[in-house]
């Protein structure tokens, strides 16, 4: 590896900027689902390898992981807000995991000179792994500022994220046993001539780190003429009032774009943040510190359930688990379709005064209902369901099929503008849940549960998810027909 890396070329066209934002969108979604995977693997109660006191720490870690995952959702939303402001299509597509992101690949990041030795960032792959020390260390690295930024800010140095000649990167601990396929690039083909883009050296000409990517996006927004950039309709910006630490605000020009981009890097790496700011990096670093202390006091401590690494549906032997896995991926893809359509077709609620209330219907289904009441409970049920391989429970793979990906990359496709497409998908979700509910009713879950103590959770959750999915589908139809439902109208102040 060379000691110096050429400075990446600047983004000079709107098309390159859009490509860079698509890459940013993919990274945010991929980070988010890794954090969710780890969060959903955490235990829901103390047991023989997790005392009551340890469980309180586990709960706080779960809270933090989910907070950071929500923050990544916010970043994903803001990046798509930026795309919308540029008049571009939303981008909720991504590659499946495992993957080696180009932005966390050593050879794309220059080593840094520290007094006495050269420090090299380690490869950080995108993988699905249950919560453990390796996982949280990897998360720290994924969110870590660059070495010079750490030195400048006085933040603790996560030494396991950087290798030196004396202490090389702990390859297996961070990267896993196998090399993972590299991530694609939307930007590279636009930065270099086609022949050069095919060359392995082409990697070095693009922004090398996530921080660099966002820096270059922000620089490009200032460099390119604003009137040519911001051609999207500002009244069609998706807006969510501030709650649960999420800020999704309209992006309408350079100033609001700056706020969005600075928020993303401040929340993630803590760049330019106030002292002791709780960035994703610091939150993960503190979890890691606490976990090391707990393990030192009790080496047998186990905070998570035995979810497999990089789950794949074809490895699941248990029939119920297989159905759950299929249902989860179908539901997750439905959510991404819904978000794609929402961002393409968004209209503020106040401006929707007549049938059809398409945007409103999508908006009322996407967030709390789908994310909180379907996706998360399904993942938690899976975490307590035996996969049938004798060792593991079932992890959600968030797998997007080639057909899913094609649809996500065509936001203009007529299907995504048609309420019946979404209603059909909800009908399929309810049918799959109904099938599982009958298995539940016939006592067929006992064989699927990880252990007997998990059966009440699986039993209770599956029924509840079925009921709620039915109600969500119903709301989707009703809101499309008549507009806002009574429960979503704020009651007057007395």
């Amino acid at each position: 590896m060379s000691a110096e890396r050429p400075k990446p070329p600047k983004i000079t066209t709107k098309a390159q900027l859009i490509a860079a934002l698509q890459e940013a969108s993919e990274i945010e979604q991929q980070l988010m689902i890794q954090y969710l995977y780890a969060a959903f693997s955490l235990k829901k109660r103390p047991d023989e390898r997790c005392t009551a006191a340890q469980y309180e720490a586990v709960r706080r870690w779960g809270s933090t992981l989910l907070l950071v995952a929500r923050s990544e959702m916010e970043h994903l939303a803001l990046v798509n807000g930026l795309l919308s402001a540029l008049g571009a299509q939303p981008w909720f597509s991504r590659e499946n995991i495992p993957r080696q992101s180009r932005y966390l690949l050593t050879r794309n990041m220059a080593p840094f000179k520290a007094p006495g030795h050269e420090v090299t960032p380690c490869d950080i792959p995108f993988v699905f792994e249950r919560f453990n020390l390796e996982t949280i260390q990897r998360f720290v690295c994924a969110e870590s500022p660059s070495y010079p930024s750490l030195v400048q800010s006085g933040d603790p140095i996560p030494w396991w994220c950087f290798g030196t000649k004396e202490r090389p990167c702990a390859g297996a601990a961070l990267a896993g046993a196998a090399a993972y396929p590299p991530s694609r690039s939307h930007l590279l083909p636009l930065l270099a001539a086609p022949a050069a883009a095919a060359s392995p050296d082409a990697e070095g000409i693009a922004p090398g780190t996530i921080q660099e990517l966002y820096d270059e996006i922000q620089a490009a927004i200032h460099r390119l003429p604003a009137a040519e950039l911001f051609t999207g309709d500002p009244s069609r910006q998706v807006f969510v009032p501030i709650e649960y630490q999420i800020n999704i605000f309209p992006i309408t020009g350079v100033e609001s774009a700056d706020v969005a981009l600075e928020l993303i890097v401040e929340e993630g790496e803590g760049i330019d943040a106030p002292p002791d700011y709780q960035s994703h990096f610091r939150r993960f670093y503190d979890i890691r510190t606490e976990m090391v202390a707990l393990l030192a006091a009790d080496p047998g401590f186990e905070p998570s359930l035995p979810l497999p690494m990089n789950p794949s549906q074809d490895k699941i032997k248990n029939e119920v688990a297989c159905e759950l896995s299929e249902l989860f991926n179908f539901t997750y893809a439905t959510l991404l379709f819904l978000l794609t359509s929402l961002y393409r077709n968004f209209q503020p609620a106040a401006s929707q005064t007549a049938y059809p209330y398409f945007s409103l219907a999508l908006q009322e289904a996407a967030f709390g209902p789908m994310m909180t009441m379907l996706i998360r409970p399904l993942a938690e049920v899976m975490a307590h369901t035996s996969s049938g391989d004798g060792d593991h429970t079932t992890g959600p793979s968030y797998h997007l099929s080639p057909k899913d990906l094609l649809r996500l990359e065509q936001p203009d496709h007529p299907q995504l503008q048609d309420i019946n497409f979404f209603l059909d998908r909800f009908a399929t979700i309810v049918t799959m849940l109904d099938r599982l509910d009958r298995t539940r009713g016939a006592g067929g879950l006992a064989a699927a549960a990880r252990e007997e103590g998990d059966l009440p959770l699986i039993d209770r959750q599956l029924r509840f998810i079925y009921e709620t999915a039915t109600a969500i589908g119903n709301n989707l139809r009703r809101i499309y027909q008549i507009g806002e439902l009574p429960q979503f109208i704020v009651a007057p102040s007395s």
Partner: protein
Amino acid sequence: MKFAKLLEIQFQGYFLCRLATDPDPTNEQSGVSGYTMALVHEDPLDQVIRTQIDPDFAEKNLREPAQRMKIRVGVDVCGVTFDGVTSATAARALHGAKVSLRGKTPPFDGPIFDSRNNTVGSDDNMMFVVNPFELEIRGEHVVIEATDHLDPTDPTRQIWQIEDPSVYSRRLPTAFQPNSQAAAAAIRVFDGYAYFRDRRRFLEQRIGELEAERARGGNRAGLDARIEAMRTRIYQLELWGDRVIGKLFFQLTYSFNINGPQRIAGAEHLGGEVDYDHPWPVTFWFGAWDGDLLTGYMQGTLGIPFQPAPAP
């Protein structure tokens, strides 16, 4: 018979509700990403609105310093009037009567603030349905029961099955006050920031006391758990800040005419005749929510169309 004038039974008191909060799912039992949780020595979060609890339940689930603050969970009758004037006979009959919300909505074992994360109600707008609504007022000689159905044309339908939510929109709150004087006065707290600052200091002090007890050789595992539970409470207060503080003075008001069965055992003790044939109006509010103790205040009035017996 049709009586216009009402025997009004006023009730008030603290309630307890071990509910999950957004962004946890409605039926979350442990509590992870919202600001409420079941600590390790407590029962799971079950969402049930409790206007009465027994000593064993209080011992396990009513957190300190509730007892020191003299918070007693119990909604009781506090007055009875007829056409606005105190009704001595009825007031005597219902003195100290206990108000309960009965019934259950599967999978929950009691009435809940139902919304299912913005599905059947709205967490964002505090538009919760108290579901089911089966009111019981139990005195020594009088038991009043009144049930309201979400869908009177089909009382067996569960909320998630009702396709047209306007069917039960009357059961949604009629008013929401984020900063209610009535709520503040009910719990005698007027500075929410100071209230929770004191709470935090109390928790830190208790952690210190428990750590000292541990150092003196107390039950390590039990003390560790209690210390960590207190740390989790502090973590939640720090993480959520205004979201918790802001709930202290909110008031959510409900008002509807009860459309289901209405019964009174021992009605003769009320001193008059009751009209069972027409809906009884009920108005009540929930509020003054302490998201750390999981307690709040309820105040309300049940109106019963009534005709007093003639004076002897």
